[in-house]
């Protein structure tokens, strides 16, 4: 009698989440919830100016406040060779400023005190004298002749260029453009945004002089990378560093980089020999930690009259702020931007990318995104719509003409990626059917007669998720594999640990489901632990939708190793040879006599109580998984909107999402990820951005100025699925956590652009605030969102 896989919480079960049991009781364990004996509190003093030389820092009054234990400046850090730290992109970043400040919000000094209120008081008592310098807030200013040099700390850095990089076939692309009937062009700015998890960053550093061990509780999505970084930066032996990432109140890429606050709290704990807690306030989080996007995209497309795309040319100018601290594979300077147009069959493409320093916080983190694919796919889908319009071809039909066909896999893209599976046309059909495409076009034409503006926007894309194979993907030279360790106890219960780190994705629930699928051990019998570098196997953490593609695969592989050993135990118990044994979920049986069998639990007991000669006791193992390729989910998002011509306000009428992420481990959780992603997509399209005035003041330094959608604004979503299993993943799964954030924004923007089509406006930069849409409608020109903004206009 075969086990019912859904009943034991295996693959495909919408199992209710294990972690919820503590969250709904208020028993989550976030960094700020942890209290250690004798713990002190740290506050950071930040620069009010975006670019200034530090003339002097007077900490006398701060030291005089009762309860202050330590005041640290750049000088304190420099005395330990910690004034600067390496970034994850081979640059350096100031921990506490020594020479000058390079962005508003940069860390200048720290106070450690008995309680956080005293620490804040003391920060205000520090007097810093600044000499203001000219400020740069966009790439155009940074690249202008005679622009002030931001990184004068770096030898051989004579301008503000971070990198110049190119990929693709320039000559082939030139030939494609020479042969084109029509060339379509598009320029846009993908605005700077902040991932903004509701929990800000923080750490508790606890250096124990007696054991020389440093324990750091930290808001990090990648604890093992942090351990390596701390070993290198603080010159502590790696086995004496323990990083614990407890429950995280969201991450979205914001909690991948190493931040000065972490390093400062570590030094403070070493100096004071007491635990030091640092909890960043929201403004500190918004103005100083990993921004995303902020990139200028220019491109053109060579087209044949019948709709075939012949080639694509792109150039990007990306604004990285004052320090290049992107966390991304080292081989690719502008992330996976060159995955753009991967779902289309395009013969030739060429991309040039230039990164620049500006007087803004370090940016370029992958905000719910697999390294710049969000910008890549947004540009792709905006360009596709513009090209379809230029040719006068229906936007759905134009996509269909150019899609990679189902029988063309594996397909090598023009930029060299290998896509391996998908049913693009089917996903589009499902989406068009669900939105009622032809009906809507009729309604739109009807509404136009009454002066109403309806629009429909499509976004279809495949994106590379799950970095990645060790040939091409590393961060600071560390290959981007991941790991899992499984211990089956004698009663058949188990504990699983991985190198990933959940921030709400529900790993405690889904990893157990993979074990259930592979071994037939009920998911409820499997504890999952992550985030403690002393106990978890080495892994690269959770971002870029890599958990299921990489760590999830490792969970399946380690389970299979356990099964292989259990088979030997089963043969021993059944007194037959291994070759005579068959497996069904949760049970081995004798092929010739299926009634004779032993369960996986009986094998586990035997591993500790009845081991055959020559076999090692115990039932535990680990697996390191180096994926052969990225996974390539596909998505089709379609939005319909109505624009009010009198105000520029637009409302979402319907939003349909069709996702093909291969096999779904837990459909409930997958759908939760998609809805969350769609909301962030809507946020980007409608309201969420951070900009700067000409002095480099951050506009959007709190939730009153940085708008995030509430339940009231957020539209409802209708979800559909198509399943094309990943051909190389052990259980056929693909990444999903970021598809909707990546592909979603273009659907909303294309819908608004479709609604106002025909008035000569090619682009409105996100977010499509009502005043921008109104300006485009009334003045009939493109609307740019590039900084600096004029404050008196707002």
């Amino acid at each position: 009698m075969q086990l019912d896989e859904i009943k034991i919480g295996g693959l495909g079960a919408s199992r209710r989440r294990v972690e919820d049991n503590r969250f709904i009781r208020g028993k989550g364990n976030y960094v700020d919830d942890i209290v250690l004996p004798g713990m002190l509190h740290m506050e950071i003093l930040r620069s009010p100016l975006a670019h200034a030389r530090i003339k002097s820092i007077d900490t006398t009054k701060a030291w005089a406040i009762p309860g202050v234990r330590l005041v640290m400046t750049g000088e304190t850090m420099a005395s330990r060779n910690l004034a600067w730290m390496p970034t994850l992109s081979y640059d350096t970043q100031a921990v506490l400023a020594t020479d000058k400040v390079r962005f508003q919000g940069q860390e200048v000094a720290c106070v450690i005190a008995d309680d956080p209120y005293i620490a804040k008081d003391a920060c205000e008592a520090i007097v810093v004298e600044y000499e203001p310098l000219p400020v740069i807030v966009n790439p155009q200013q940074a690249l202008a002749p005679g622009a002030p040099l931001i990184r004068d700390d770096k030898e051989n850095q004579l301008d503000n260029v971070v990198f110049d990089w190119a990929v693709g076939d320039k000559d082939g692309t030139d030939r494609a453009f020479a042969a084109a009937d029509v060339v379509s062009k598009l320029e846009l700015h993908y605005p700077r945004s902040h991932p903004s998890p509701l929990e800000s960053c923080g750490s508790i550093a606890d250096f124990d002089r007696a054991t020389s061990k440093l324990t750091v509780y930290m808001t990090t999505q990648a604890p093992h990378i942090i351990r390596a970084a701390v070993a290198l930066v603080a010159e502590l032996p790696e086995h004496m560093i323990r990083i614990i990432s407890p429950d995280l109140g969201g991450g979205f890429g914001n909690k991948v980089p190493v931040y000065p606050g972490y390093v400062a709290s570590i030094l403070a704990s070493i100096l004071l020999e007491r635990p030091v807690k640092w909890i960043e306030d929201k403004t500190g989080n918004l103005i100083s930690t990993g921004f995303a996007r902020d990139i200028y995209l220019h491109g053109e497309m060579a087209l044949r009259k019948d709709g075939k795309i012949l080639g694509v040319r792109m150039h990007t100018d990306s604004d990285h702020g004052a320090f290049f601290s992107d966390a991304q594979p080292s081989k690719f300077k502008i992330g996976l931007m060159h995955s753009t147009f991967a779902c289309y069959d395009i013969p030739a493409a060429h991309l040039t990318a230039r990164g620049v320093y500006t007087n803004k916080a370090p940016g370029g983190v992958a905000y719910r995104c697999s390294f710049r694919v969000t910008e890549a796919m947004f540009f792709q889908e905006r360009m596709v719509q513009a090209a379809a319009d230029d040719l006068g071809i229906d936007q759905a039909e134009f996509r269909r003409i150019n899609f990679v066909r189902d029988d063309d896999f594996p397909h090598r893209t023009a930029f060299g990626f290998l896509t391996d599976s998908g049913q693009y046309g089917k996903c589009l059909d499902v989406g068009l059917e669900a939105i009622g495409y032809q009906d809507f076009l009729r309604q739109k034409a009807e509404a136009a007669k009454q002066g109403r503006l309806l629009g429909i926007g499509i976004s279809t894309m495949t994106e590379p998720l799950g970095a990645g194979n060790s040939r091409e993907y590393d961060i600071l030279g560390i290959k981007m594999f991941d790991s899992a360790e499984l211990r089956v106890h004698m009663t058949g219960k188990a504990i699983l640990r991985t190198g990933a780190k959940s921030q709400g994705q529900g790993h405690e629930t889904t990893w157990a489901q993979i074990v259930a699928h592979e071994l037939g051990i009920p998911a409820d019998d499997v504890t999952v632990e992550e985030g403690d570098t002393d106990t978890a196997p080495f892994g690269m953490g959770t971002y870029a939708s890599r958990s299921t593609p990489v760590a999830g695969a490792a969970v399946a592989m380690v389970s299979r190793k356990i099964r292989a050993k259990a088979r030997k135990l089963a043969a021993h118990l059944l007194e037959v040879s291994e070759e005579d044994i068959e497996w069904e979920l949760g049970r081995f049986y004798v092929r010739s006599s299926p009634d004779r069998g032993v369960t996986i639990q009986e094998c586990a007991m035997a591993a500790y109580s009845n081991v055959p000669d020559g076999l090692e006791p115990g039932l535990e193992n680990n697996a390191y998984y180096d994926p052969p390729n990225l996974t390539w989910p596909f998505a089709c998002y379609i939005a319909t909107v109505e624009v009010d011509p009198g105000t520029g306000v637009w409302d979402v009428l319907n939003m349909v999402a069709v996702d093909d992420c291969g096999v779904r481990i837990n459909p409930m959780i997958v759908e939760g990820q998609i809805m969350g992603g769609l909301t962030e997509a809507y946020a980007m399209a409608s309201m969420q951005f951070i900009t700067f005035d000409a002095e480099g003041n951050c506009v959007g330094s709190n939730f009153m100025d940085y708008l995030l959608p509430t339940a009231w604004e957020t539209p409802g979503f209708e979800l559909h699925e198509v399943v094309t299993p990943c051909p190389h993943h052990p259980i056929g799964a693909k990444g999903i956590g970021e598809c909707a954030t990546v592909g979603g924004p273009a659907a909303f923007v294309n819908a608004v652009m479709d609604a106002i089509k025909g008035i000569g406006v090619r682009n409105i930069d996100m977010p499509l605030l009502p005043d921008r849409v109104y300006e485009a409608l009334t003045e009939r020109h493109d609307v740019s969102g590039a900084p600096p903004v004029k404050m008196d206009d707002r």
Partner: protein
Amino acid sequence: MSSLFAEVPPEPASDVPVRRVTINVNGEARTAVIEPRLLLAHLLRQGFGLTGTHTGCDTTNCGVCTVLFDGTPIKSCTMLAVQADGHNILTVEGLAGASELHPVQEAFKDEHGLQCGFCTPGMMLTAKAFLETNPDPTEDEVRWALSGNLCRCTGYQNIVKSVLAAAEKLRGQAGN
């Protein structure tokens, strides 16, 4: 509270005034001596160890610090603890009964109304208070009621489903 041992803090500087407050938290009278500037969220978290109440934005926008003040949702990060003197506060830790979860808690789990869990306590308390005033709401009414609480993970759709499911369950209980 045991009086076996209590560490006495060093004498405060003479110019720092303190106040003695007694607040009924989750049905239990709690007394503390505090600086008047102490925020209610910090007293609950650091003073009383009730860390289910989170702090997020410091500007009353995100709602992760929401608690019920005499039954009404308030943002405890912008209320002084002294303002709660003599009042009743309900935090997430007081939501469940001795043996069973509140229907709102059950519904959030059943409908996948949470992911990272950081907004969840505030979201549930807002929902609880709302359903007491409007036991049979429409989806739009739920969305409006929750608009003072941000969530970055779920996209709200499942939170709304959770609140509607809890409403149904509560109506069922009231009918019995």
